[in-house]
């Protein structure tokens, strides 16, 4: 099934992204983003929205049943509202599927991060491990990323310098993004000597966190055309999980990203992603992840993303810009909203609203989000004019 011209993003609003937000509660972040998004779409949420999808994980919120605290600040009382406990792009997929049934015209998607409230994030993340086999090891969750990076470097002959180049690129890109929480001018050496976190992963190769909220308004084709002259069409969407077991997963290869990408390309009718897509926003929770995901998504052959990055091919001025927004490394990791931050940049670029970092002449973009350690779940979306 090809999705062409059936679902569009007609409104985008966001709040943040900042490393702390002591002036705003998570509800206020959500409200801020929602009001901007509704204004952008030109809709009245009480009258025009058929359904709401919020994305959040209980342990990130410090609340059981996050769904309870969603409706008020989204103006969603007495409406169909659901939570997706997943990646932001899973929420986008849920909203798109609702519209594709033909029963819903306008659906809102929300995700947020109040990471600065979480004082013990690694301890929280450790609860994601298999409680019987893996959690008793009592290791810092980032060890999974260190081991994965080691395997990826060994299998693909990618160098550590090439991974560090991702950090230098993305944080420099963030200097041109007023919404980025962690912009910096860094050299490759700065990254390499920033101290080991889980060998070979260094501190600057791990995305710091940011607070923020993102809200999109999605609409069916007819409604989208009525609401805006510039709908951003959802051309394809895909998501997939690999095995969760540490003992049986392929450590070097992001198979979940390959499967998610294949589904997104299939639903977009894309045969050759590298030729048919102009730029991408790809999960870079850890520097090597951008390279691993870029390869798994079929944008370059396995083992080539590193040298491509080092040569500037994925720079904002390169042949195929990746994470011109600054990515998670430059904007800050937004917990479950991270994938929607990737989508946000694609939307802004396609609308020509990306300011100083605008890439000229882009028509089609890809966004990919990953659920973080220790998971093997990801989601991809192709957007186009």
């Amino acid at each position, binding site marked *: *099934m090809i999705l062409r011209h059936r679902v569009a993003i007609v409104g985008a609003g966001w709040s943040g992204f900042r490393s702390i937000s002591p002036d705003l509660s998570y509800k206020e972040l959500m409200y801020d983003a929602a009001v901007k998004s509704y204004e952008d779409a030109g809709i009245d949420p009480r009258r025009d929205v058929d359904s709401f999808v919020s994305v959040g*994980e*209980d*342990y990130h919120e*410090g*609340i*059981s*049943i*996050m*769904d*309870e*605290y*969603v*409706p*008020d600040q989204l103006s*969603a*009382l*007495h*409406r*169909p*509202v*659901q*939570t*997706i*406990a*997943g990646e932001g792009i*899973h929420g986008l*997929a*849920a909203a*798109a*599927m*609702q519209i*594709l*049934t*033909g*029963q819903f015209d306008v659906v809102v998607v929300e995700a947020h991060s109040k990471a600065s409230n979480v004082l013990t994030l690694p301890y*929280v*993340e450790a*609860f*994601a491990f*298999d*409680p*019987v086999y893996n959690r008793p090891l009592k290791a810092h969750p980032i060890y999974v990323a260190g081991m994965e990076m080691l395997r990826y470097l060994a299998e693909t002959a990618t160098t550590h310098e090439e991974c560090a180049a991702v950090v230098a690129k993305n944080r420099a890109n963030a200097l041109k993004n007023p919404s980025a929480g962690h912009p910096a001018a860094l050299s490759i050496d700065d990254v390499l000597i920033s101290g080991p976190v889980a060998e070979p992963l260094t501190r600057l190769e791990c995305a710091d966190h940011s607070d923020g909220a993102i809200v999109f308004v999605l609409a069916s084709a007819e409604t989208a055309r009525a609401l805006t002259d510039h709908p951003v069409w959802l051309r394809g969407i*895909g*998501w*997939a*999980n*690999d*095995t*969760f*077991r540490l003992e049986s997963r392929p450590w070097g290869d992001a*198979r979940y990203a390959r*499967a*998610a990408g294949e*589904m997104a390309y299939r*639903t977009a009718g894309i045969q050759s992603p590298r030729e048919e897509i102009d730029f991408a926003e790809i999960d870079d929770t850890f520097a090597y992840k951008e390279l691993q995901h870029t390869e798994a998504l079929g944008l370059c052959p396995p083992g080539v993303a590193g040298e491509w990055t080092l040569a500037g091919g994925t720079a904002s001025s390169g042949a195929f810009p990746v994470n011109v927004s600054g990515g998670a490394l430059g904007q800050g990791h937004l917990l479950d909203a991270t994938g929607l931050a990737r989508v946000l940049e694609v939307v802004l670029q396609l609308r020509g609203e990306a300011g100083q970092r605008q890439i000229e002449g882009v028509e089609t973009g890809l966004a990919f989000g990953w*659920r973080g350690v220790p*998971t*093997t*779940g990801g989601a991809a979306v192709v957007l186009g004019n």
Partner: protein
Amino acid sequence: MYGNRMKGNTPRVAVVGAGMTKFVRRAQETAKELAWEAAHLALQSCEMTLDDIDAVVIGTAPDAFDGVHMKSEYLSDGCGGWGKPVIRGYVGGGTGVFAAIQGWYHVASGLFDNVLVVCEEKMSSCQPHPQAAFLTIFDHTTERPLKHNLLWIFALEMNAYMNRYGLSKRDIASVSVKNKHNAADHPAALLGDRDITVDDVLNSPVLAWPVQRLDVSPVTDGAVALVMSASHEARRVTNKPIWVEGVGWNLDTAYWTNRDLSYPVYVEEAARMAYDMAGITEPRKEIHIAEPYDPFDYKELHHLEGLMLFDRGEAPKAAADGVTQRDGDLPVCPSGGLLGVGNPIAAAGLMKVAEIFWQLRSEAGARQVPGNPRRGLAQAWGDLMQVGTVIVMGT
């Protein structure tokens, strides 16, 4: 068939297979194993394998029960999701019925032909009792310092309901008795009991007045799974597909203390959405069998009124008159419900959808309601007395 209100040409979606584990107080199996047992039984029931499944929908309630963060990632391979699109929807206690709604929109979107819907709950992991995990559902600033639990707030709601309509405890206790009787015929039930009486309920220990021990469903481990298919697949797989005719869901404000608790207006809104989609204008005539959510006995009555199957305050009298018995005019919770079969939160909701599936296919064995019901409804409820989820299915 879809009713006249189902807009456009939405593809039809059917339930074609169902399976469930036994509901028990403390399962030996891990959460993954429970999920797979239910998934496997559902696949077997329609002679499918995982190769036939295009996507997996997972439903499971608070991560705090299992103490597992991002629980659907952990459960994904147990639910049959390896290498497939996996998504977890979550609306608190309403999750079980919502998982089926989510399965519906996966298929009705046209993206997938066959979807496996798996709901799992392992409450026994939370020691000594999962009520402690429920403390974390409350607002951290305004409510959590009170250190109350769910029984406490549902006691408030039960009181509001009883006071509004002048109901007695005896009026309400008959629901618990009916459901535990019905569950005695369910091979997977935890608390089936043919001998229990209204006096047993009224003499059980008080937990938070007016809630007594036998007014409440038990802590339970278990899993339930469905296979949902597009019409061309459904007709290939079975000659008895059960069609999804309408779905509805609705959420009220988080500020539950400011609401009139005597009537679940959000359930009414969800039911109106589902009835509209199904083209139902007279639910009392057009719904033949109902599985409303019954974690407490008063909730079955409360929900029957919210679903507009009885006038406000009238459901207790109908229950006392036997209308909701398995052989009554409107059989309600013929499965035995949460009070009888058990309440593994998300799995309990999906069990209700599975029961409608089995009843409409005349496959419910000793639980089968007479008269060949052609249309049934399942409903769940959750969050802070806040969310309603409704699915209407027919032959």
